[in-house]
């Protein structure tokens, strides 16, 4: 073990392990997006538009996700309604 290893062992995780963690998250995210059907972005927009016809919400208050669990797809729509 060199002197650098000696100092390193007590400090934060190595930069390579930070890189690995960040890559695993972004790659998983991008892979799940790739599996989404092409119509999804437009459908999301239309759902948001319908909700907005009735309730005043910002676009970030509506979260829409399509999740694939085994052979079952779940469309999850989360709307944060404003306080009355």
């Amino acid at each position, binding site marked *: 073990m060199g002197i650098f290893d000696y100092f390193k062992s007590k400090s934060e995780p190595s930069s390579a392990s930070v890189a690995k963690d*960040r890559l695993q998250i972004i790659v998983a995210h991008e892979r799940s997006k790739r599996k989404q059907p092409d119509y999804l972005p437009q459908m999301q927009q239309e759902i948001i538009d319908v909700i907005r016809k009735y309730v005043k919400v910002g676009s970030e208050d509506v979260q829409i996700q399509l999740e694939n669990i085994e052979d079952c797809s779940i469309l999850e729509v989360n709307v944060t309604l404003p306080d009355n």
Partner: protein
Amino acid sequence: MKRPSGDTALAKIIVVTSGKGGVGKTTSSAAIGTGIALKGFKTVIIDFDVGLRNLDLIMGCERRVVYDFVNVINKEATLTQALIKDKRTKDLFILPASQTRDKDALTQEGVQGVLEELAKDFDYIICDSPAGIEKGAQMALYFADAAIVVTNPEVSSVRDSDRILGILQSKSRRAEEGKEPIEEHLLLTRYHPERVALGEMLSVSDVEDILAIPLLGVIPESEAVLKASNQGTPVILDTESAAGLAYMDAVDRLMGEERPLRFLDVQKKGFFKRLLGG
């Protein structure tokens, strides 16, 4: 030697691709194409990098280019006129890229015609892809049977490799026709064992974990690569160098042979390096 696909006149088409630029696609195409030819298979390496022809320089045949890929597609030359026979390695040919600035010079039908004609005569067709994930890269991978995804142990290269995997799985002919998917192979290049040991660089297993495709080989960062490109000799012919031997191992694995990984350990070079954690 027998053709890889049995007796039918079908060449195996291998694309060397990466998404990110400058990671070693051309170096790897030249080395692997040469390695396959050394095994006795009739091999052609095609430069798909329209406007940025470079394979000719790496293979040392730049002064023998008369006609190119686009000339053949446009019927301005025959394949026989455009193919350059390698001077060193038997059974090896190069089809140079065009220098035209017209990025649309390669049409899908044109490429298909050339590949079909080559397939009658060759065992392996290696396609050296341009960088990017757009049209040029998609053209190079469209007809592939196998892909060598060249990756450097660095965040943007790994992410781009995953993007190109997505394109191989959705925008290739095999994907569009619902055929068996393109065989995927990971080739990790410009690997620095010392920096991996220091925790400064992603390791082989880190990249394998993230991309989750089979590993074809690991090519260490090596001065021999620059030297080989200066001389116009594919680095695989430098059997004194770690990079050359690592490419040969990768070719052996591509042919289905088992080869243990090597050149991944830190070279111990005396007291001072050890003190510095080398």
